[in-house]
Structures are given as C-alpha cells and as structure tokens.
C-alpha cells in the first residue's frame, strides 16, 4: 500500500467518522447527565431526513441544517419528556424513538416527494460543499503536474490537500466539538453540574440546582449534536436522504461512547477507529491478514464485536455514570 492510498483511506476515515463523532458526543452529554440515549440513531435519522428535505425544497443547505437540528431536538425533547418528566424507562423510550424515526421519515418523505421514501438529490447550494484550505488547491495542482510529468511524487503533500483540506464544514465542526465538549464538561460550572447530575442527582438537587433543567439541557445538547450528525450524513456525505440511511451508525456511536469511557478525547479516537474500519471495509472487499482472508462481513461486524469485548471488561473496564438509566425520583 502506497502513501497515497493510506492517505486516501484516512481521508475517507475522517469523512465516515464525522457522523459517528457528532452522535457520540451527543450521547456523551446525555449519558454524562444520567440519561441513557439509545435513540441516537433515530435522532440522526430524522435530522438527516429533514435537513435533506428542507434543503431540497428551499435550495438552501443552511435552512436544511436548521430543520434537521430542530427535528432532532424535537425527538430529544420527546425522550426528555418520557425519561425526565414522566420518569419512564430510558431504554424503552430510546427504542421507541428509533422506530418512530425510521417510520416517520419514510412516511413524510413519501407524502412530500413521492419518490419512494427518499428526497430528491441535492445539488449546488442545497449541499455542504467542500472547503479548500488556503494553498491546498495549489499543492494539489502541483501534485497532479508532477504525475503528468511522469515523475512519481512522494505524496506527502496530499496529507494537506487531501486529508486535512477539502472536507465540508461539519467535519471541521465535529472535530472542533471535541475540545469544546471537553472544556464545557470539565472546566465550566455547567459541566460540573452536568457530570454531578449523572453521578448523583440527589446531590445536585440538595445543592439547590434543578435536576430536571440540567437533564433537559443535556438532552437538548444531544439533540443538537445528533442534528448536526444527521444533517452531515444527508447533505455533506451523501446528497439526499434515503430510507434508513443511518444504517446503524447511531449504535456504532454508542459503541464508540462505551469504548471512549464517556470522555471526549477518547471519543474522537474511538470514532476514528470505527471510521477507519468502515473505510477499509469499503475499500477492500476482503482483506488478507497473514494469509487469512477476512470477509467484509467480519469487518462490518467488528465495531460491534469490539464493543462487546470492551463491555465484557477484557480491555479495561468502562464504568458508566452511576445514575445513568435511572429516573430521578424524589418522592416514591
């Protein structure tokens, strides 16, 4: 494998890791506040649909983005209503949200566009276009020219013009969200309270801070981030919505969250790892490692297998926030 191929795979990794990362950070905020969120998938899916639908209808990706985020936040609020206000089972609520999203998107898409549950393909301003960082185009041209001259270039410059430059805005946003999340969680008052409410809501309540408000805030943040993830999927990575297009990414994000032990920086690496797995699986139909052919199905299942291994505690134990999954009940 030459350097260029590696860079290309990494480039693909970054693109594919972006929705995972945004969803994973969404889960991070929610679960750090004690609200388990297996509805990441569903929120991403509605966001993907509404962003694509509104972008297709208006021709503006920004309106699409806003619509996607709004839809995702709406679903997040349903989750909040069920699990915070009515103290329902967070897992069941998440399951319901995933189904609701999967049915609702196709239903509305069919009614709206009559294209069999998909949106029209997005073009031009209805999609996020790739951002070329300063100097990237020139470097790329230089590279192309070297090839044209019949010289085999080293390809190092591609790290800049291909891997670093040339992604859509949301990719950079997602990466920037990692330090931002870290800072918010560990360096601000809000973060301290948020983490506390996921560990011991009673302590937060008696300290005079509203558990309900904090948890809603966390759930809404998760909604926004899932909204970005879904919008990226439909308007950045692809050009339009197709049925069930999240294809289990919400669950992979959940897996990454466990992998990351609920920490932002680890989340970045976990998502990049899972993105890499997907990129490699896309690139090669089967992979030979030491003469053993590994089928793609195995590559596809690898994130899930890894998660189970992590959960089993064979690779460092992941301790979730202590109050996770339990509704805060003051009076029985």
């Amino acid at each position: 494998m030459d350097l260029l191929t590696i860079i290309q795979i990494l480039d693909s990794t970054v693109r594919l890791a972006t929705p995972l990362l945004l969803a994973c950070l969404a889960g991070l905020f929610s679960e750090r506040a004690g609200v388990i969120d297996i509805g990441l998938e569903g929120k991403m899916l509605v966001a993907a649909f509404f962003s694509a639908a509104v972008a297709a209808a208006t021709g503006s990706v920004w309106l699409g983005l806003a619509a996607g985020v709004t839809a995702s936040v709406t679903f997040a609020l349903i989750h909040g209503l069920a699990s915070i206000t009515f103290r329902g089972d967070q897992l069941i609520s998440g399951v319901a949200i995933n189904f609701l999203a999967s049915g609702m998107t196709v239903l509305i898409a069919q009614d709206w566009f009559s294209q069999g549950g998909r949106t029209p393909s997005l073009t031009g301003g209805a999609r996020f276009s790739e951002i070329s960082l300063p100097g990237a185009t020139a470097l790329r041209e230089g590279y192309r020219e070297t090839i044209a001259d019949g010289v085999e270039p080293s390809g190092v410059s591609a790290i800049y013009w291909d891997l670093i430059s040339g992604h859509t805005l949301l990719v950079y946003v997602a990466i920037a969200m990692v330090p931002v999340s870290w800072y918010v969680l560990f360096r601000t008052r809000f973060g301290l309270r948020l983490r506390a409410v996921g560990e011991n809501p009673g302590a937060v309540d008696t300290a005079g801070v509203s558990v309900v408000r904090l948890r809603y805030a966390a759930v809404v943040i998760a909604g926004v981030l899932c909204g970005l993830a879904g919008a990226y999927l439909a308007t950045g990575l692809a050009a339009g919505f197709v049925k069930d297009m999240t294809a289990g990414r919400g669950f992979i994000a959940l897996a990454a969250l466990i992998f990351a032990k609920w920490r932002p920086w680890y989340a970045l690496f976990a998502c990049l790892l899972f993105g890499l797995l997907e990129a490699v699986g896309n690139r090669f139909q089967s992979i030979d490692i030491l003469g053993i052919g590994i089928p793609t199905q195995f590559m596809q299942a690898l994130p899930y297998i890894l998660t189970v291994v992590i959960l089993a505690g064979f690779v460092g134990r992941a301790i979730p926030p202590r109050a996770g999954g339990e509704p805060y009940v003051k009076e029985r």
Partner: protein
Amino acid sequence: MDKLPKWADVALIPLINLLLALLVSGLVVLLIGEDPVEALQIMVRGAVGSTYGWGYTLFYATNFIFTGLAVAVAFHARLFNIGGEGQAQLGALGVALVVLWVPWPHWTLALPAAVLGGALFGAAWAAIPAYLQARRGSHIVITTIMFNFIASALLVYLLVGALKVPGSMAPETARFPETTFLPTARDIFAAMGISFGRTPLNISFVLGLAACWATWLLIWRTRLGYEIRAFGQSESAAVYAGISPFRIIMLAMLISGGLAGMMAINAVMGEQQRLLQDNVLGAGFVGIAVALMGRSHPLGVLLAAILFGALYQGGAELEFETSVPREMVVVIQALVILFTGALDGMVRRPLSRMFLRFGRRRPAPAAGGE
C-alpha cells in the same frame, strides 16, 4: 403510590395507552393527507374481514407471540432483551440446518427437530450476552443490540458463502424439501370441508398457543418461575434466598432466546421454506411492544400479538389500497412502545391520584397496622 386496583393496572392503563397511540397515529395519517377513519376501515377489513386477512393476521401474530414471550420472560427477570431480532435470525439458521441436512420423511418428524434446532440456536445466541451480564456485568441491552448486528453479519456471511445454492444469485439457501412443509390452515380447514384463504398460517400458531400456556406455567407455577420473578424484583433478596443470579440470568435468557428462535418455525419453515437474509422482519422488535402491552403476561402477550398481527396485515392492505406506505405500521408500533413503555407515567400518575382521591373518601388508612 401503588394504590391502583389491579384491573386498572393490567387493563385500563394499557388500553388508554393504546388509544393514545392510535390517536396520534390517526393524526399522522391526517397529516399526510389521508382520511384516518377510512384508513382504519381498510386496515380492519384487511386484517379480519376475510379468511385471507385472518390467515395473515394470525400468521404474523404467531411470530409476535414467540418474540413477545421471549421479551416477557426476560422482563420477569428484569432483563431487557433487545436481542430478539438476532436470536430469531439464529433460530432461523438452526431451523434451516435441521431441515436441510436431514432427509425428513414427514413433517411430523421434522417439526420437533426444527423446534429444537431453532430454540437451541436462539438460546445459544442469547447465551453470550447473558453470560457477560451474569459474570461480568456487561449491560445486556447494549450487548444484545450488538449481537443483533453481529447476527445479521454472520447470516450474510453464511448466505453468500457456505449456504448459498451454487449458481443462484440470491443470498438464500435451497428450498426445503416438500416433506417438511407444515400443514397450513388452508389444508387443515380443507380437510374439514371449510375453505380458507391461501395464507401461510400454519400449525405453528398452535405451537404459539402452547408456548403461551407453557410460559404461563413456567412463570407462575414452577419453582424456576418463582425464582425468576423473585430475582427480577430484587437481586439482593434473591441472593439472600439462595437463588443464584448467574443461574437465573442464564436460564431466563436461554429460555428467552429459545422462544425468539422458535419464531423461525413459523416464518422460515412455515412460510419462506428457505433461509433468507432478512427472515425476521423486525418481529424481534415488535416483541418489545407486544410484551410491554401485554404486561409480560402470556395472555396479554397473546392478545397484543394478535393486535399487532392485525396491524401488520392491515398495514399491508393499507399500503396496497392507498398511498400510505407500510411504514405507517412502524410508526404505530413506535407510538405503542412510546406510550405503553416510556410515557406510561403520563397516564399512570394522574390515574393513581384519581383513584387515591376516590379512596380517600372512605376513612383514611391509619399509618401503621398495630
């Protein structure tokens, strides 16, 4: 606050929840520009208006009985088994292997073997998450979700590889031999001189009814059931009583997985008669809604399964006759799970307050019994 009369808990609340779910579904139908009343009529007519409709309704219901019971048994041990889907997939593999590998002379011999194969494979697929939960405390909800994905990858691997019919393009196994076809309702009724629509409803339905009864016996009449329920209520109390959590988690999940796996008898042996890549059709997930609605009681599961069977069949007709896509059923299913499972408190709390106020009229019960 647990002052609700039992009938309210087991009948009134699920009913209100269901009505709410249907109401919201009606709004959705209205929203996409169709007439909800008409849609409902089509669905009802499609589901129970003919022997054809009944046939498909009960055919789907049979699937849901098995997956619903699977979720319910695990619920009794306070285990949330989201893995019904994967366990049913593996059950299908088990059924297919049993039926394809042994030249069965007659279905009466093939059926018990297939039941065993399906149950065994389903149970085996549940065993790993169960073991990890019992021994290493790995959250069973997450592991079973992961195992659903792994199951479908495994099945694809086998269906595009070892199990594929050489020369065929579709990822599916060979067709089962005719000797293993289960008698359908049409055959059985025909023998009695009654004509019944050509549907895949088959004797697995009877098997489903038997499974309901057996589950009821298990949960409420056996020592194991007693232990499962006790464990589900309080793990620490179970340990005190000498009930091994490991044993209960394993057994409850094995039974649960086995029940999910037995769904394949109906779907794979009864209808598809070959192993397809996607043979469960989301029934594993419907099982969650069914168990929630049925309050994890086999009778409730049976009724809820028939309801969902009707919903599925009605939904298919709806799609056929109007422009409402089949996804409408998924939406209804989601709303049922949402209202009966997650938003239960929305109905329960005001209701118990009402009952409490009602009860207060009589002299208030003094604190303390002495």
